[in-house]
């Protein structure tokens, strides 16, 4: 990620007169990356849109808490990932879905989503992902789709590099096993 852009964003956000311009730049720089991280967790576009907007509002209100100890983008990913997982947990509590059925529920949503048009193999991949626990799914998505380093993933997930490696490797094996069982 362009560190220059992050610096520019932070400089604009530091001054009241340029705060809105800085925030607009932050949105346009990160909206797509954060959207995809959220979308791959909550599956449906409408849900992803709600979570993403809430996420940016939260960032707007709390940007002064960013002290520069980590990279801006890992801080943003952390908020987005937490928001998405919180959303899923809330929805699960409201719908009183059993944990075992959560994966099935998400994969049904995926098939009904008008904004999903993947091949059979991609559909099965997403279904396999839906069988993973939320945090492991987040770990897999960050490495597989976002191509993030373990160090940055550690900052996002608040977990050690070793634990993340183990989680990702285990996730890959589980997905491969699932895909072989459905004979793609």
């Amino acid at each position, binding site marked *: 990620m362009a560190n220059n852009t992050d610096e520019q964003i932070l400089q604009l956000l530091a001054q009241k007169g340029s705060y*809105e311009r800085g*925030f*607009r730049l932050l*949105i*346009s720089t990160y*909206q*797509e990356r954060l*959207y*995809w991280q959220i*979308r*791959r967790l909550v599956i449906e*576009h409408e849900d992803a*849109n709600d979570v*993403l*907007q809430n996420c*940016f*509002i939260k960032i*707007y209100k709390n940007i002064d808490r960013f002290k520069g100890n980590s990279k801006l983008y890992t801080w943003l990913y952390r908020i987005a990932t937490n928001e998405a997982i919180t959303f899923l947990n809330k929805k699960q509590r409201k719908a009183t879905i059993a944990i075992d059925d959560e994966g099935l529920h998400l994969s049904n949503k995926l098939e009904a989503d008008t*904004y*999903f*048009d*993947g*091949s059979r*193999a*991609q*559909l099965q*991949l*997403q279904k396999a992902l839906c069988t993973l626990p939320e945090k492991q799914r987040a770990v897999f998505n960050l*490495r*597989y*789709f976002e*191509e993030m*380093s373990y160090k940055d993933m550690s900052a996002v997930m608040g977990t050690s590099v070793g634990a993340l490696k183990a989680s990702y*490797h285990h996730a*890959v*094996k589980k*997905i*491969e096993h699932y*895909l072989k069982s459905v004979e793609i």
Partner: protein
Amino acid sequence: MDQQEEINKELNELSPFLAKLKKEPDGFEVPHNYFKALPDEIMSRIEAEEQSSRSEAPGFSWLQQWQAALQGLLQPQYAMALASVVLLLVATWWWFAPNSAMAEQENVFATLSEEEILNYIDDHIDTFGPELVTVVEQADQPTDLLPALPIEDAEAEEYLDEILNELDDAELEELL
């Protein structure tokens, strides 16, 4: 080796099948112009939330908030209920509140000594009606006192005999 190559090499070693699948589009789509319109949509929501929080801020419009609450209460359906509650409260207060004139009298009596009260009664005994005198006498007499004492009839007679024996003739005559 750059980061992307390293990630792909790791995946290829773990699962060549997933490494191959990664090259395909994942199938997720977004509505047309979604990302173009999103910044404006988010900024509008932020502005709306800020306006809403400003109007809810304490001190800004406490008078307006009171007026709004009052107007709400004056709606016919709420006004009837409110009037009933107020009437009920007034009636309850009226029923249970001490009579102020009587309370004042009680306060005056509390400041008088027993001697002053007795003197007053002696001086004004003629002004008291017979009904009031009867009521006061009845109130002064202990009613149903004896049954409460655990004294047998024989004991009572023995006690009276003792008292009578102690009296001399003159005292006995005076008593009778």
